[in-house]
Structure formats: structure tokens, C-alpha cells
């Protein structure tokens, strides 16, 4: 399995008759925070769903922690946070965690540890319905952390959070990475790029770039991730146009 947490080769996904992902290749190294960036509709969620084994794929292979994506032993080794918080709105924070903890065989200490990590201890007995959007998404994150997974797949976990909380969560992500956890974190906010060890830029269901931020900036000569992304998009559009002209 080498040093990669995720290996995607030739992934193809068709949803509702349109090709959402077309022959996508990707390697996510272990023990790093890898950012998955791209505009909405670029295939970030579809790719993540394919990695956790929730997406019906039409071709290619996805290997996660050395095993085919979706295989049963992976279910206790991956923590997955969906884009909209997957929590039961009519339960309290602790009741939500208790159900996932029962599935993963985690005890009350584990629940408390996960709540501490996302800074929700004082909301433990509150009903989800009374929480803010940002608090809800942190409950969802706490559930993903419960089983101390080897890989965290987080679909826009910092949406709706204030800058302080965002910084705290990114610190948590790096702490986890230092302890050997691999993280794939999607975002459509380009300024979060600076916080990732590596960056994958997606556009139209294909990988536009896969490198560190420094390499990306050096290659494009842009001052920041957003500028680099725009430069790469322009380049790709020009290439497509040239191909179209030849044909």
C-alpha cells in the first residue's frame, strides 16, 4: 500500500446521464492534510463519496488504505463528514454521538474526547435543533472523529464557521495528521489552501493540479491559490479552445 492513503485510477462517474467525473487519477499521501479545492459542481463531493464507498461508480479503481473503496474493513477506519451535517435534528448532541459510539464500540470517554476536540462540551445536552449551523457541522465532525479513524474524508467541514473556530479546526486537522491520520478536506474557499500540506484542484470532474501550494504558486507565478486556480482555468480553457480549433 506504500505511502498513499488513497489511490484513484481512471475513475468515471455518471450521474443522471451526465459524466460528473471523467477518468480521474489521484494519489493522496498518508499522514498529510490534503485540500480538495474547486468550484461547486467540479466533482469534489462525488469524488469523496467514491472514496468512502457511497457512490456508484462507472469505471476505474479506488483504493483506500490498501483496500478497495467500500470494503467492509474500511468502515471502521474512515471518518466521513458529509456536506450538510448528517445528524439527527431531534436528538441532543450526546444522543447523536452515543448512537455512532455504539456502532463503533466507543465508550463514554471517547464521546467526551470527541466533543472536546470540536469544542462542544458545553453544548453536550443541547438538542441539535437549537444549535447554529456551524455547531451542527462540528457535531457531525465529532461523530467522524469518534472511532479514531486512519483516514478522515471531510466535505467542507469549515463552512459557516467564524475565523477563530476555523483556525482551531485546522490546528486539530494538523495535530491529527502528525499522529499519522490522513485527511482529505474539501473546500471552495481558496484561502484555506494555505493551510493544507498538498492541494488538489478539481475542475469539471478532472484534476487540474496536484502539488504543494508553493509548487503551484511557482508554476503559475500567481500571488495566491485563487490567482493560481484562475490561471490554470484560463490555461485549460485556452487548451480546450485550441483542441476545438484543430478538430
Amino acid at each position, binding site marked *: 500500500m506504500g505511502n498513499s492513503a488513497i489511490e484513484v485510477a481512471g475513475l468515471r462517474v455518471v450521474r443522471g446521464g451526465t459524466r460528473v467525473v471523467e477518468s480521474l487519477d489521484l494519489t493522496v499521501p498518508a499522514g498529510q492534510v490534503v485540500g480538495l479545492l474547486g468550484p461547486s459542481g467540479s466533482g469534489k463531493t462525488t469524488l469523496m*463519496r467514491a472514496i468512502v464507498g*457511497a457512490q456508484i461508480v462507472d469505471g476505474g479503481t479506488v483504493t483506500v488504505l490498501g483496500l478497495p473503496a467500500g470494503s467492509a474493513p474500511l*468502515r471502521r477506519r474512515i471518518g466521513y*463528514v458529509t456536506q450538510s451535517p448528517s445528524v439527527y435534528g*431531534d436528538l441532543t448532541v450526546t444522543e447523536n454521538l452515543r448512537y455512532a459510539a*455504539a*456502532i463503533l464500540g466507543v465508550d463514554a470517554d471517547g464521546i467526551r474526547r470527541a466533543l472536546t476536540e470540536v469544542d462542544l462540551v458545553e453544548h453536550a445536552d443541547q438538542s441539535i435543533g437549537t444549535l447554529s449551523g456551524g455547531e451542527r457541522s462540528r457535531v457531525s465532525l465529532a*461523530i467522524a472523529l469518534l472511532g479514531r479513524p486512519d483516514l478522515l474524508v471531510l466535505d467542507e467541514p469549515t463552512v459557516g464557521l467564524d475565523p477563530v473556530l476555523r483556525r482551531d479546526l485546522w490546528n486539530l486537522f494538523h495535530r491529527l495528521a502528525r499522529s499519522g491520520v490522513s485527511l482529505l478536506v474539501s473546500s471552495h474557499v481558496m484561502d484555506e489552501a494555505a493551510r493544507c500540506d498538498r492541494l488538489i484542484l478539481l475542475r469539471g470532474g478532472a484534476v487540474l493540479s496536484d502539488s504543494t501550494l508553493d509548487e503551484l504558486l511557482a508554476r503559475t507565478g500567481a500571488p495566491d491559490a485563487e490567482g493560481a486556480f484562475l490561471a490554470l482555468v484560463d490555461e485549460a480553457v485556452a487548451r480546450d479552445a485550441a483542441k476545438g480549433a484543430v478538430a
Partner: protein
Amino acid sequence: MNAAHSVATDLRTTTRQERGRGMTAALTAATARRVLTQLRHDKRTIALVILLPCVLIGLIAWMFDGTPVLDQFGPLLVGLFPMMVMFLVTSVATLRERISGTLERLMTLPIGRGDVVVGYALAFAVLATVQALVIVGFAVWVCGMDVAGPIGLVVLVAVLDAVLGCALGLGASALARTEFQAVQLMPLVLFPQLITCGILMPRDEMPTVLEWLSRVLPLTYALDAMQQLAAGGAWADVRGDVGVIAAFIVGALLVGSATLRRRTP
């Protein structure tokens, strides 16, 4: 030693979960507990589920006061109303789980599909049992329903009918993508059965095809049992019906877990 113990437990649960459709008592119970906790937070739904059938029975008792109508048809309604209510509640509850994203994550966790479906059914069976006890008690003690057969069997069949409603609701919810569709499933699944089950016309007078159809639909047996009990039947008269209802409950739950998918488009 503690670590060794937890590793052993881990391995055990892992192997049992490998197959995916497998079930463990602990995880089924955890799901049932979670669904019951959700219900407990929703007091208004509990009140509606339990009081609504009583209101309907009460109306009929009042309307036909002084006639034997309640004694004849009461048991039928005691079986029917809870089944309809439970069908609706269960199909909407499971649909909500399917579209809210909670099911998507649940299916990436080490829990069997059977654990989810049977856990749901168990939780709603608890509610169904309370509902059946309350409605039979209300019909007998408040409305004065006088059943010729043993009242204990009326309760048993009422509980089974309500659980059948849950199981059918669970199975049917796979067909719905939206709440609008889910609400229509109840008339879609239950009304044709109601028409052919023998209340509107004795089954042996029906066109042959409809008579055959009625034989493969569960409501026929669910309501036949109640009619038998109203007419003074005993265990020997209803045990066949009870067996068929139980088989349909199991079958609907199997369909429910088979249609639960780990991967979706």
C-alpha cells in the same frame, strides 16, 4: 489486558460485520434505542399516534350507539387504524433518514443493513404495542365494545397488524424520493388491499382474479383474523392468519433491508 480484550471484541464485531447485510443484537438494539429516543423527543407525534385511532373508534361508537355495529366491526377497525397510522409514520421517518444524509453516513459505518431496518421496526413495534393496548382498552372499557372472541387475541392481532403497517411502511419507503411521494404510498399500498380484503364484498363472491389477488395480500389475513374474533373465534381459528401476518412482516423487513443501499447514484 484491557487493550487485548478490546482488540478481541473488535475482531469479533468486524468479522460479523464483514458481510454487510449481517446483524448483531447489540447494533439492532442501539438503532431501536436511538429511534425511540427520537420519538420520545417528539411528544406530539406520540400523542397523535395513540389518540387518533381512539378518536375514530369513539366517533363510530357514538354514531352507532345502541346497535351491535361496534361489536361486529370494532375489532376490524382496532386492527386497521393503527396499521394505517404506523405505515405513514414509519415510511415518513425512514424517508427522512434517507434524504437527510444521516443514512448515507450510517451506511459507511460498520453496521449491518438488517440492524438499521430491524432496529427501526423494533422501535416502532414498541409504539405500536402501546397504541394497540390503548385502543383496545378504549374500545372495550370506554366505548363498551363487546368482542365474542378472547380479548387477549384481539390485542395480539392488533399489535401484529400495527407492526405489519410498520414493516410495509419501511419496505415501501424505498420507492419514495420525496415526502409528497411517501404520503401517497399509504393509499397506494393499503387501499387496494382494503377494497379486496373482504369487507366490501365477501371474497367468494368476487371476480376470480380479484379473489386470487386478495389471497396474496396481507391485509386479507390481518382483517380476517379480526372478523373471526368478532364472530367468537378462538386461537385455532386465527393461528393460520397470525402465521401469514408474521411471515409478511418478516418478508417486508427483508425487502426493506435489501433495498437499503450502501452505494447510491
